[in-house]
């Protein structure tokens, strides 16, 4: 793990010292980061044979069942830089360096967050990721609404994570340690009072808002839409999964006997949110907003899968998180290719693109199919596992999840048909042809997803 943590740290300095031309900066940055990602891939593939945790030191470890998030982060950073190339081309060099340093610091905090063994360190990194993201959204977003979006993002996540801090400090007082290594062997806590129920809720609310759960999801469409493409990518692909990862850890360790009864309202919110946000998606005229609400919908399923606390539920949640990370990021990149050409996110303005950019249509097609969970893609595998564990929990959930799957298919197809099929608007001229950078970006997003069809063991987690 030192192999990719230390280079990430050094990338900060590298961003400052490189040559003054943009192309050099971008190519070198993304090249180096891809190398880091490759090291990580190698490590993760080796991890498939481990049985226990690998420790760097007592404070950081990589478990054999949750290493994929670090891989996702490392994989995404070069993709983020490649995708920002166009809109950063006009900025002065120091601002480009700042942008790349913000992205790199995000990767650094995320690696530390996903490999932390001490819960306070995880909490610190969880909070630390807020700052670079806020800076990216509010400084480099495209509309005036980005300030509002940044405020919503910051305050929703910050306010909901304060109870988590209190809960963690309480836990430290009760058990004397917050290290995951020790907590897993400590005695189960005696959670019987009303205050303990509040403590339970305090532990989980931060992650539920981050996921996001349907009732507290308002920050997500704003933040995803107003952020520049790299901000949208990292938000959709990794920061949401930070919530899922945190929930999995907390539920496995300390939240035990209360979760049986107290998880009911949150499962209800999550499943109802799948249906409701799916219906909202069908009504959207803003392309990025559609993809943002579809993220909420998929994450609702993930929350449902985690909160039923069965091995299949956790495995399904893990698979869906990884697959959704790649898919959602790919869709945001595609929406950005549209935006770069017509400078509008309106879905009605760039229609019938299959006639003009047929190769990009292929990527749109694959990404839309992945979004609607087509077999044999891992998106479907994750959804099936979650659906199965939910049906085992209560057969009535099928009504909601079945409707959710139908609605997901309909809005994914709606998005594909609106942007690619149909009449080409007559006033659209001077559309750039698809750059090879865009093809590279989409290939690097979707090829791992397609390759995961052939070796799903890599992300199957517990049940392998």
């Amino acid at each position, binding site marked *: 793990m030192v192999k990719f943590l230390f280079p990430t740290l050094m990338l900060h300095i590298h961003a400052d010292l490189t040559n003054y031309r943009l192309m050099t900066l971008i190519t070198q940055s993304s090249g180096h980061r891809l190398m880091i990602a490759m090291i990580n891939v190698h490590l993760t593939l080796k991890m498939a044979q481990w049985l226990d945790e690998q420790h760097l030191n007592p404070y950081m470890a990589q478990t054999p069942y949750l290493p994929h998030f670090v891989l996702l982060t490392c994989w995404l950073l070069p993709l983020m830089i490649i995708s920002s190339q166009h809109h950063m081309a006009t900025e002065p060099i120091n601002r480009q360096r700042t942008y790349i340093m913000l992205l790199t610091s995000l990767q650094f905090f995320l690696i530390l967050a996903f490999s932390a063994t001490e819960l306070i360190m995880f909490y610190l990194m969880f909070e630390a990721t807020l700052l670079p993201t806020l800076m990216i959204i509010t400084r480099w977003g495209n509309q005036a609404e980005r300030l509002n979006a940044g405020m919503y993002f910051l305050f929703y996540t910050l306010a909901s994570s304060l109870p988590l801090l209190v809960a963690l400090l309480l836990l430290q007082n009760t058990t004397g340690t917050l290290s995951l290594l020790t907590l897993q062997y400590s005695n189960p806590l005696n959670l019987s009072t009303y205050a303990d129920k509040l403590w339970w809720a305090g532990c989980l609310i931060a992650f539920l808002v981050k996921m996001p759960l349907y009732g507290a999801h308002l920050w997500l469409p704003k933040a995803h839409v107003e952020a520049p493409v790299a901000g949208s990518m990292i938000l959709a692909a990794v920061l949401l999964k930070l919530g899922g990862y945190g929930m999995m850890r907390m539920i496995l360790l300390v939240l035990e006997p209360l979760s049986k009864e107290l998880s*009911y*309202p949150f*499962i*209800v*919110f999550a*499943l*109802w949110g799948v249906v*409701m946000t799916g219906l909202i998606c069908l*009504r*959207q*005229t*803003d392309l990025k*907003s559609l993809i943002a609400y579809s993220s909420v919908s998929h994450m609702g399923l993930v929350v449902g899968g985690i909160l039923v606390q*069965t*091995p*299949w539920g956790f495995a399904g949640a893990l698979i869906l998180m990884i697959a959704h990370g790649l898919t959602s990021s790919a869709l945001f990149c595609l929406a950005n290719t549209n935006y770069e050409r*017509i*400078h*509008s996110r*309106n879905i*009605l*303005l760039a229609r019938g693109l299959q006639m003009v950019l047929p190769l990009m249509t292929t990527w749109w097609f694959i990404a839309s199919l992945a979004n609607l969970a087509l077999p044999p893609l891992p998106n479907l595998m994750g959804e099936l596992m979650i659906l199965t*564990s939910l049906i*085992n*929990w*209560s*057969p*009535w*959930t099928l009504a*909601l999840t079945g409707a959710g799957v139908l609605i997901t298919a309909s809005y994914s197809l709606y998005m594909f048909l609106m942007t690619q099929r149909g009449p080409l608007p*007559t*006033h*659209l*001229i*001077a559309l750039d042809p698809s750059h090879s950078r865009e093809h590279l970006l989409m290939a690097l997003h979707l090829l791992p997803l397609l390759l995961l069809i052939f070796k799903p063991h890599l992300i199957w987690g517990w*049940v392998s």
Partner: protein
Amino acid sequence: MADYKEAPLASRPKTLDPNEYFNLSLEHRRAEEERAALRSNLKRQFQTQLNDPHRKALIEDQALNRWSYARGHPYPYFKPTFKTSLMGLMFGVVPIFALYYVFKTDRDKKEADIKAGKFERRFCLSS
């Protein structure tokens, strides 16, 4: 009556055909002509931009921008009426409680069956 003249890039629409005017009031005709004048001005602007050989950008339609902004930002204009409150309850509050009730009774029944020993476990490869 008709101050409306046909312009080079905007022909006379059918609703403004003088032969159709016989049963309409003067007020109505004047209003229709005014609206037609505005519309034809917009059409003329659109045609100018469409046929401009130096244009590289998208033609901005302010009506579309206003409409999509209105679709995306309804919250400042929300007014709690009977209908909106009913919709909020039906889609936001009642389903939560109804689903909680459904899941709770189903699970409690299962729990009671398990405690009484009457629960048939079907074969489950895993859970």
